[in-house]
């Protein structure tokens, strides 16, 4: 099984890196870009387990290790 976890800053946290990327795009003429939030993607390969089991483990891993819940949020999808 393969799972993709996306970690990004909570809305209440400033993301200066995302801002810098947005400003660069504006400089290139992409004025229509309103906002950018930068995050991290983790692709996790798991031994074959049930979807229920994955739904238990992945949030646990994300909360404990992949994301810092004080500043970050996560979402995930089972891709394979």
């Amino acid at each position, binding site marked *: 099984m393969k799972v993709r976890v996306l970690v990004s*800053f909570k809305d*209440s*946290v*400033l993301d*200066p*890196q995302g801002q*810098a990327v947005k400003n660069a795009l504006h400089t290139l003429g992409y004025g229509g870009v309103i906002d950018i939030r930068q995050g991290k993607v983790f692709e996790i390969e798991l031994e074959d387990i049930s979807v229920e089991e994955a739904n238990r483990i992945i949030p646990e891993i994300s909360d404990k*290790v*992949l994301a*810092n819940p*004080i*500043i970050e949020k996560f979402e995930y999808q089972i891709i394979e």
Partner: protein
Amino acid sequence: MKFGVVIFPGSNCDYDTYFVLKDVFDQETTFLWHKEHSLHDVDCVVLPGGFSYGDYLRSGAIAKFSPLMQEVKEFADKGGLVLGICNGFQVLLELELLPGAMTRNKNLKFLCQHVHLRTENTHTPFTNRARKGDVIKIPIAHFDGNYFVEPETLHTIKQNDQIIFRYSEPNGHLSERANVNGSMHNIAGLINTGGNVLGMMPHPERASEAILGSKDGRIIFESIIHWLR
């Protein structure tokens, strides 16, 4: 009295810290390797600056799972003195021994410069030789020093007098200009509610001898030694 300086793979201020404690202050000091399961009866643990585990994932995020850090957590829970400097502060935040988290500096630059800190609370093992309002000049060297905390927690740490150092002008005036990394409430150093765990981004061990441009960092080590005596 015995000090222990923790070494993670990627620590790079471990020898500076050891040198200051051992040679400048003439204190018994030992290194503690991150894979050990014992603190060897030290009275104060220092988590030095650097890039533990290459700062992979997040600064301090991997270090918190070291076997030694479980010992440090237990030691801190029992009231043992723990000082986290720079990356050491980041590790303490990840371990949740201190509240909040670090994000990238507001100007997205690695900042390596002297800053001024206003001492906010001197009733601590780490600042008892200072006077409230004292301004000290100590260098910083970090990429992720932009302190963030939820407003409710900020309110609590203010009420508990947990803020120990704030970035200020040389005259002690607090300003946005002095707040070089963008930290919330100009926070540079923070203590836990028990008063035995201090995290600070600036490096007192780099400001403990006149030849290095400032001796102001000595006050922190002098306070700890005085407290433990």
